[in-house]
């Protein structure tokens, strides 16, 4: 006969409510872990998916995810010329915030090297990949855009060809994949009014120059789109991604790049850890702190509840001792209730969590390791939480039944 289950059944309402409370606390603990995992995965998503052997970024910078990195796009051709390199892709990224459909929309513009990279690796939920060099993009579903929808950015209108799922940047904003050229245009191109102003000022600057006066064609060229202006130079890219051929000596290739004064070189793993130590680090520590506090609170709440559950039964425990119950019967009663509370709380946390996590503003990823970790943590919490109650139960004397 299991005494713990019978006591729980007798106090079902109170026990159930307590389990629910513990469950919700655990759900948040679990969710915190999931948010952290989500932040890590979102942050490293691009680095992982782009899967380059080496990242060439602006010299002395930590790469486009950590800070502004600008490189001349010609670096692509220089990199290709290095022995052992089989491909070099331009890569551009920057975050913009524009108004669309009456609301502010933040999107991370990612430029893919057209035509080598058409986004074959993108996990599409619907639609298709990029099929033309310009004016198309693949957007993440978190941006709220649907296939076929048109978005005006600067002077041009871009059409959504596909929608991805869970492609989020380090800041939690949805990713939008364009060709590098479009990405550059979006970055450097402005609205028609701004362009007209810019053109006028360019023309004014050109007119002030001897060159402008002697070369009227230059004045005309000043009115063209930025990325075609020879005088201004080609728009910059954020990084060049290099892939090595089979059998290539990675260290040697890297040494070559490191000899170049205008670039810094990182492997994907290095980019990854730079991300985790950089933009993600503070969020991670914040979440870790919250999680630790919540675990502590859960422990206190559980200890308090288990203690009062035991106090309520003290007379019965004394009676059990009086009729000769061994200590392990008493210990079993207290501990089993603790573990039952923990187990029910855990299940509630899981079930409720799975229902509500999708509504969290950031992605929540619950891994198996995390579930196992939490189960272990709950078991430890139950044990620690019971200590006070067990201490009380062990001390009660059978003669207290008589008083």
């Amino acid at each position: 006969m299991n005494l713990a289950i019978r006591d729980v059944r007798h106090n079902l309402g109170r026990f159930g409510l307590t389990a629910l409370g513990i469950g919700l606390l655990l759900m948040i603990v679990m969710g915190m872990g999931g948010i952290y995992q989500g932040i890590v995965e979102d942050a490293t998503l691009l680095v992982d998916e782009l899967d380059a052997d080496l990242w060439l970024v602006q010299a002395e910078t930590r790469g486009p995810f950590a800070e502004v990195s600008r490189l001349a796009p010609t670096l692509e051709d220089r990199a290709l010329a290095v022995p052992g390199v089989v491909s070099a892709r331009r890569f551009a990224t920057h975050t913009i915030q524009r108004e669309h459909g009456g609301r502010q929309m933040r999107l991370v513009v990612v430029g893919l090297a057209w035509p080598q990279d058409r986004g074959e690796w993108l996990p599409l939920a619907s639609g298709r990949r990029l099929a033309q060099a310009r004016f198309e993009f693949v957007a993440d579903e978190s941006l709220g855009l649907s296939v076929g929808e048109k978005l005006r950015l600067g002077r041009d209108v871009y059409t959504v060809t596909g929608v991805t799922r869970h492609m989020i940047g380090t800041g939690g904003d949805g990713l939008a994949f364009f060709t590098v050229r479009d990405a550059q245009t979006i970055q450097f191109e402005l609205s028609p009014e701004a362009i007209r102003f810019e053109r006028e000022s360019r023309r004014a600057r050109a007119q002030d120059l001897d060159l402008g006066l002697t070369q009227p064609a230059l004045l005309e060229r000043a009115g063209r789109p930025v990325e075609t202006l020879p005088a201004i130079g080609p728009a910059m890219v954020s990084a060049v991604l290099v892939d090595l051929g089979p059998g290539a000596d990675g260290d040697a290739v890297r040494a070559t790049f490191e000899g170049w004064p205008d670039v810094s070189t990182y492997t994907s793993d290095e980019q990854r850890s730079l991300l985790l130590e950089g933009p993600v680090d503070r969020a991670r520590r914040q979440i870790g702190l919250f999680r630790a506090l919540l675990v502590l609170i859960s422990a206190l709440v559980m200890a308090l509840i288990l203690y009062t559950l035991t106090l309520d039964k003290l007379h019965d425990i004394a009676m059990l001792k009086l009729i000769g119950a061994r200590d392990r019967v008493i210990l079993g009663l207290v501990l089993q209730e603790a573990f039952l509370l923990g187990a029910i709380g855990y299940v509630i946390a899981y079930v409720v969590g799975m229902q509500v996590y999708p509504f969290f503003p950031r992605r929540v990823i619950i891994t198996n390791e995390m579930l196992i970790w939490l189960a272990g943590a709950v078991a430890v919490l139950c044990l620690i939480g019971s200590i006070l109650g067990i201490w009380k139960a062990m001390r009660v004397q059978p003669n207290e039944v008589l008083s």
Partner: protein
Amino acid sequence: MNAPSDHPAIETRGLTKIYGSGNTEVRALRDVTFTLNRGEVVALLGPSGSGKSTLLGIVGLINAPTRGEVMLDGTPVYRDARALVDVRRYRRERIGFVFQKSNLIPFLSARENVQVALEIAGASGRNARRRSMELLETLGLSDRAHHLPRALSGGQQQRVAIARALANRPSLMLADEPTAALDSERGRQVMGLFRDLGHQQGAGVLVVTHDHRALDVFDRVLEMEDGLLRDATVSDLTAGATNVGGSQPGEA
């Protein structure tokens, strides 16, 4: 076994119990020496506060005496305040208790309250269930077996407690006013059960009672007054009861 044997179930020597100290000191037992044989069914009378429950608590291995010796079945169990045996095991295996209050476990049904005593003493679940149902039937409670204590009347609760005390066929039964909450019919039946436990199963039975009408079931009557114990004869007391009626002395 019909007559009390000479084999002592309880022997005490110079039993003294002092509660508290200084101004609040209470001498609940003073130098109590007595023997209760197996198969003997003995009543313990005495005014309120005279030390009856205290004596029961000590020979039932719930409380240690301040001074004196207790032997159960010939084995020394207390020497002064020191326990010489595993008292919990003795209680589990040899002693049945019934208290003034029923002290049932509130989250267990009537049957489970009996069963738990059996399981604590090592009975298997099935046997324990069967025996607890039999006991409840004997006490007229088979239709209340699955009720929680709070759904039972005071008398019914007390009968469950009696079933629990009988469950392990104890060699020593200690009962503190077991029939107070029962009507005279039931009271008589319960006393009969105790007598059978003594006379047929050879247990020592010590029952605190105020009910002078039921004294004829006892082999012997002990009387306590202010911590002192003396033998009284059954006929004296039954005669006294008819004369004095319900005016048994109150506070000592």
